[in-house]
């Protein structure tokens, strides 16, 4: 009896100590930033679509290890974000796909309440889907979808209410083979959005490989020839034509990620393509759909050691507040992710190690990635989704089926110290699941002023991460050019909070096979004299009154000062 009382006493004391440290379930401990924020995995919550798992194949079909796109966009113009999920069946044969293998469109009815409207929407493409992007191809104010497949790609036109029609044939889309990330951008300045389709490799399905243990394994990309990316010019009449070769984009490579932005500061749109196991390409534009690759010259082709890496996804944004567009490319295990700092005038430098990203990323295979202000402190944080392509040490907490467990890795959130140095976040609650993550997209799904995240996994499941940031001053901005009746992709928003400049580019693609919310998210925790300016994609600029904070506003070209 006596000893029993003593034990109970000890337990009580321990419990009391635990409470006094503040580490309770409801109140997360403070992180190294000056305020608190947390991510909550709400994937299993009511109101979210049920997980549709893809049936594992016995063999290792390479495309299944590379799929997983997701697009966050407002499909019906009701002001809240919806979600398009790319799915696939066991083969690239459309005819054998069952209903669960078709792409899904989830409409958000109320915050965090999504309804599967696939059947009603006509967006149920049955191809072996890789990725997608949303863009307004006909300047009617709604977002259409381009779907990249293993097999023929598809273009779906939105009628504005979230009902889509497959116009691939009518519009002359003839991209076949293995497409990966997709991007909408006006490359020739005609006010119509063109499409850049990154293509991966020329798959030979007869190639089968085994690992040292004699088990079937996914083949390495080096066993296949790279495929030619495609640039599809929008003719403005609903039709598209491939201008790849005329545009000078004549170098087949194993492309996976793509972004558009002004890489050399000349005011003209450029493209950057991440290639798998080959030098990356920086296609500098001439403003009229002519490009040349200057990656080597600019320091963007290979890393600081002179090595080409296995490029997957790309994040872009100004990480160090100097107003210039920096780039981060995710890579294979044993290769760190690479941060290319923009030095200005078309010169970049690999500063991965100096910015704290070398050591924490070397043991992971990165795919999706996004620079976003995760903790609403005004600088860009980094999120990366991970999952191997070759079996390795199975994590004790690995989730998913037996097939995928040896490929599972944890995802990472890195917090920016404001100077462009990153430190891995271990306290926000993000990435508690160890899975095989691929696609990644961000957007303020509940319009509460912080960016939520959605991550796809190779087994078809979807992780929803709700951001609960401490209240701050925030703005969500639609940046519209009335002449095209759509978001001005390529415009740059400059916000000064009285202390620091935040420069955010509208659109531009990025991540891996995925598309994020096109609205601009700004946040600050500081008080001061604030200013807001938009540099439109045509080179003109306007200043705007800073809208009231914690609001969603629209900045229209011509309505500023």
């Amino acid at each position, binding site marked *: 009896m006596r000893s029993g009382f003593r034990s109970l006493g000890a337990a009580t004391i321990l419990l009391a100590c635990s409470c006094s440290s503040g580490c309770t379930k409801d109140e997360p401990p403070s992180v190294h930033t000056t305020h608190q924020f947390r991510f909550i995995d709400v994937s299993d919550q009511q109101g979210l679509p049920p997980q549709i798992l893809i049936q594992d194949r016995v063999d290792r079909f390479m495309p299944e290890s590379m799929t997983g796109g997701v697009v966050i966009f407002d499909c019906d113009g009701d002001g809240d974000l919806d979600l398009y999920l790319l799915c696939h069946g066991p083969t690239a044969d459309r005819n054998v796909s069952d209903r669960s293998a078709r792409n899904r469109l989830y409409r958000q009815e109320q915050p965090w309440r999504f309804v599967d409207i696939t059947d009603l929407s006509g967006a149920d493409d049955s191809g072996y889907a890789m990725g997608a992007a949303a863009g307004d191809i006909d300047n009617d104010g709604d977002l259409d979808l381009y779907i990249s497949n293993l097999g023929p790609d598809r273009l779906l036109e939105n009628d504005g209410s979230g009902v889509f029609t497959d116009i691939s044939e009518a519009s002359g889309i003839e991209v076949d083979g293995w497409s990966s990330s997709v991007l909408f951008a006006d490359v020739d300045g005609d006010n119509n959005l063109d499409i850049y389709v990154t293509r991966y490799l020329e798959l030979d399905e007869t190639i089968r490989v085994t690992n*040292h243990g004699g088990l079937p394994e996914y083949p390495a990309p080096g066993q296949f020839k790279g495929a030619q990316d495609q640039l599809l010019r929008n003719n403005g009449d609903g039709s598209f034509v491939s201008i790849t070769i005329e545009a000078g984009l004549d170098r087949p490579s194993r492309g996976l990620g793509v972004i558009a932005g002004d890489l050399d500061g000349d005011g003209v749109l450029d493209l950057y393509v991440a290639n798998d196991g080959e030098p990356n390409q920086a296609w500098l534009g001439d403003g009229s759909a002519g490009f040349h690759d200057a990656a*080597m010259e600019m*320091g963007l082709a290979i890393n600081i*050691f*002179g*090595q*080409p890496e296995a490029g997957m996804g790309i994040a872009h944004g100004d990480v160090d507040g100097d107003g210039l567009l920096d780039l981060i490319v995710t890579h294979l295990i044993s290769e*760190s992710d690479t941060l290319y700092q923009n030095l200005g005038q078309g010169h970049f430098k690999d500063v991965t190690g100096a910015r704290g990203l070398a050591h924490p990323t070397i*043991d992971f295979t990165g795919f999706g990635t996004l620079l976003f202000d995760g903790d609403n402190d005004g600088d860009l944080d980094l999120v990366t989704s991970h999952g191997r392509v070759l079996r390795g*040490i199975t994590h004790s907490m690995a989730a998913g089926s037996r097939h995928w467990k040896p490929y599972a890795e944890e995802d990472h959130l890195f917090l920016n110290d404001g100077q462009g140095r990153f430190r891995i976040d271990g306290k926000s609650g993000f990435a508690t699941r160890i899975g095989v993550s691929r696609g990644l997209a961000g957007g303020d799904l509940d319009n509460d002023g912080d960016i939520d995240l959605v991550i796809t996994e190779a087994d078809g499941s979807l992780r929803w991460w709700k951001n609960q940031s401490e209240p701050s001053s925030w703005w969500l901005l639609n940046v519209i050019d009335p002449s095209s009746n759509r978001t001005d992709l390529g415009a740059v928003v400059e916000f000064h909070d009285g202390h620091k400049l935040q420069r955010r580019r509208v659109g531009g693609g990025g991540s891996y096979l995925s598309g994020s919310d096109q609205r601009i998210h700004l946040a600050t925790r500081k008080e001061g004299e604030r200013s807001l300016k938009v540099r439109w994609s045509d080179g003109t600029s306007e200043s705007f009154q800073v809208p009231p904070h914690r609001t969603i506003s629209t900045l229209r070209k011509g309505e500023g000062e």
Partner: protein
Amino acid sequence: MKGKNKVSRFRQRLLPTLLLGVLLLGWWLAPTGWFERYPQDLPAISRSGMDTAVERRLDLLLNSLQQQPEAARAWGDVAILLDLHQQAGPALECYRKAMELDPAEVRWPYLGGICASLGDSDEAFRLFEVAAMLIQHAPLSIRQGQIYLQRGEFDRAEQLFRTALSIDDQLIQGHLGLARCALVASDLDAAGAHLDRCEQLQPEAGEVASARAHWWRLTGDVQQAQQQLEAATARAPREPLPDSLRQQAVMEQGVGPQWLRERSRRLLAAGDSQGAIDLWQQAVLDDPQDAASRMGLGRVAQQQKKPLLALQEFAEAARLDPDLVEAHIALGVLRMRRGDAAGAEKALRQGLALDSASHEILTNLGALMMTTGRGAEGVQFLQRACEVAPDDADVRFNLAMAHRALKEWSAVCIELESMMKIDANRPRARFEYGVALAERGRFTEAAVQFSWLTEQQPQRVTGWTNLTRALVRAELHGEAIASLRRAHQEIPGNWRIASELAWFLCTCPDARWRDGIEAKRIAEVLCQQQGSTYPRSLDVWAASFAECGDFESAIAKVNEALQYLSDHPELPQDPQLEIRLAGYREQQPHRY
């Protein structure tokens, strides 16, 4: 009642006694393998999808471990097997246990470090540090250096690369590591010097070329940088790190056909052919039903000139796995070589029934038909081989040679022209093309082919002699003489060239190029070297005498040649000698 109680008491005592007995028996039997009683520290091992041969080896090693749970080697062996067969997690735990039991053995931390390096670089780093305290091993320093490099600790990385090179200065990874450290520090002179060394060691290394591209960029020469980068992209991206310690472990514990093949290759490379045969024979004994092992044994036996054993094993492999195309091919090819045309055809046709698009089978069937006098059928098979492998230069060359055997010179030209569109730089094809062109009377074009050949292979005699003949037939006498003179310089001691030159100098139809004196000098030297007995050389000497007007000597030399041939009836006789003799008797020099 009393008796009943006794029985009851007996039963009450018997039951616990029996239970205790069973427990003791179990405890006693456990180490003998009757029960699996593995050490408690043994991690969970997934056998899902594991190859049966690996599983058998694993059972063997676990049994050993059971017998000696405190033996580091027993843990280490299990670790290596698991490591090599994609069970990195439990392998790492076994390496750690082996380290704990034998802290002085370097293999456990070192191999554990390599195992951890793909996915847990911190653990790899820690284990390599332990290993480095036990051994000086260049690949270990390289691996450590690479981790430091990736982490941005360049001074430490540089130090380790230097350590590696102090042990083995041929390690390209050491020089490349130093070059990368220098590139990071923008020390272009040092980086350039290290890259020079890399390029000396391995001129075709892709990773060196890409580092060089980066170097060119830093020097400001973007064009060179771009060129180097393109060269790098076309090459293998990584150079393998030669590592004896790791290789030894791999060779000891790797199970499965790929390891057997590798071990066998090494044994053969070391000259131990019997060892290789023993290795495969053991694999066959382990699993007599395994067709792959039978094939392995057959191939080694074939290499070691033991065709009967090879035939037996290929046939057995084909019997055990009738769908194994390679077995039918190997059997067919070997039977063909041994003159068993019927058996070869049967095996190859069985293979073809399984894989009608195998150009290897079609080609061998084509060759078989050609050698058995069924030329038309042979050509058909080879044509089918070309259809299934239109871009394979070898296949098309074989078809050309089949046409050549049938003296279908036009078809030879067509096939070789197609083949040379795929691979224009193959000397044998150029030679055969030249012959076919000459046979068709296209001497100038033939001369172009032979001229290319002599540039590529100046030591090849038939190239020069064919070139001369093509030039002569094209009536380009000056060019013919010039080419022979060049050949004589390139291959000064060659009697055929010397003989051809002397012959042409004294028999050239164009008087401007004839030089009987030089011809006589060359022929004399030639005959002296050959003891004045070789009929062809005597014939040349005779022609040179005739060209100089000394018909008496010419007749004497021809007679010597005729006498020699008469004394050696086994030699091919030359009726032209009598004709020339008649000419010399009439004071007529010979003309080419």
